């Protein structure tokens, strides 16, 4: 009876911990959804977290029975499953980023590595936890690896390169500029949490959203980077410095003048960012207009219209 109670208690504790973890995860996902609608992580790869749960329960049962060897084996097996699932999910996220961008380097092969770790965990659990002979346990591992490959595939190996009008490969330069811009936006977002003023916070959130939209436009068409150089090098960096400076200062000295100045600067930044976004959108329209004009002229010359 005592053992049963102990077992039930251990299972309850682990279930509660898992639920809390899931709740926190869902909340984080919801926050991300609010900030960047295009980057909501899918549920792909969640299965690899759920399927090995019996191994965790086996470890708890071994603990309740006082079986140290069983506890050790199952705990290592579950740890490996968890590591594999995390690597796989991270790999899936990197692959989604790679698919979304027009210019990208080949991501780290985390998905393949995760599949390998899951296969190892399956083989180890089949051998030490379920007491299958080593050859059979190896077969379990191979089936798991094949399943991961068929279901999730291997990682992309080819970089998506970008060359400018002169034919020069500028992939690294483009990626560097985008990463730097993303870092600046993340820094502004982080600093917003230190500022306790609802109005300024909502203005900063709008600026961050605008900056992300501009960055998405640049990621979709890196030719626009030349047009947005001032935005990336001057405005975004300036916005970051001003926000960080205000967050540091307003904690020590709270003056209405400082707040007014900061409010005015934020209004200007928002205006400039809106103009930048509009410019990029108009440039796309102009490009399309030019293409239509060229095509029409060619068709007229050939007597089609």
């Amino acid at each position, binding site marked *: 009876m005592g053992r049963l109670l102990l077992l039930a208690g251990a299972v309850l504790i682990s279930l509660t911990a898992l639920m809390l973890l899931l709740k926190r995860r869902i909340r984080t996902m919801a926050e991300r959804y609010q900030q960047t609608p295009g980057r909501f992580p899918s549920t792909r790869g969640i299965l690899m977290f759920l*399927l090995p749960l019996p191994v965790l329960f*086996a470890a708890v049962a071994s603990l309740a029975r006082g079986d140290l060897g069983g506890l050790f084996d199952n705990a290592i097996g579950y740890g490996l499953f968890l590591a594999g699932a995390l690597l796989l999910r991270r790999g899936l996220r990197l692959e989604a980023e790679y698919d979304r961008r027009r210019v990208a380097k080949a991501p780290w092969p985390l998905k393949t590595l995760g599949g390998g770790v899951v296969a190892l965990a399956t083989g180890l659990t089949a051998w030490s*936890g*379920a007491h*299958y002979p080593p050859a059979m346990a190896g077969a379990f591992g191979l*089936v*798991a690896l094949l*399943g991961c490959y068929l279901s999730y595939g291997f990682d992309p190996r080819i970089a998506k390169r970008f060359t400018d009008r002169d034919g020069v490969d500028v992939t690294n330069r483009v990626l560097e500029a985008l990463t730097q811009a993303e870092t600046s936006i993340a820094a502004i977002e982080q600093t917003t949490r230190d500022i306790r003023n609802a109005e300024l916070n909502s203005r900063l959130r709008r600026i961050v959203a605008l900056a992300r939209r501009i960055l998405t436009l640049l990621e979709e068409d890196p030719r626009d980077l030349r047009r947005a150089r001032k935005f990336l090098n001057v405005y975004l960096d300036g916005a970051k410095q001003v926000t960080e400076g205000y967050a540091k200062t307003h904690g020590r000295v709270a003056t209405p003048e400082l707040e007014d100045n900061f409010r005015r600067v934020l209004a200007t930044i928002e205006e400039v960012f809106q103009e930048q976004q509009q410019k990029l959108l108009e440039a796309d329209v102009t490009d399309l207009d030019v293409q239509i004009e060229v095509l029409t002229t060619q068709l007229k010359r050939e007597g089609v219209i």
Partner: protein
Amino acid sequence: MPDYLRKFIGLLLIFAAVGVASCEALWVSCCTTAAPPAALAPHN
């Protein structure tokens, strides 16, 4: 092979390998009795 069929077969294989191995581990863990510590073993 169509993409959905490949993914479906992959999921089946994952269920077969990971699901069976982990459920077997739980089964073995619940059914086998661990040897009691020497101090608690019955003395004849």
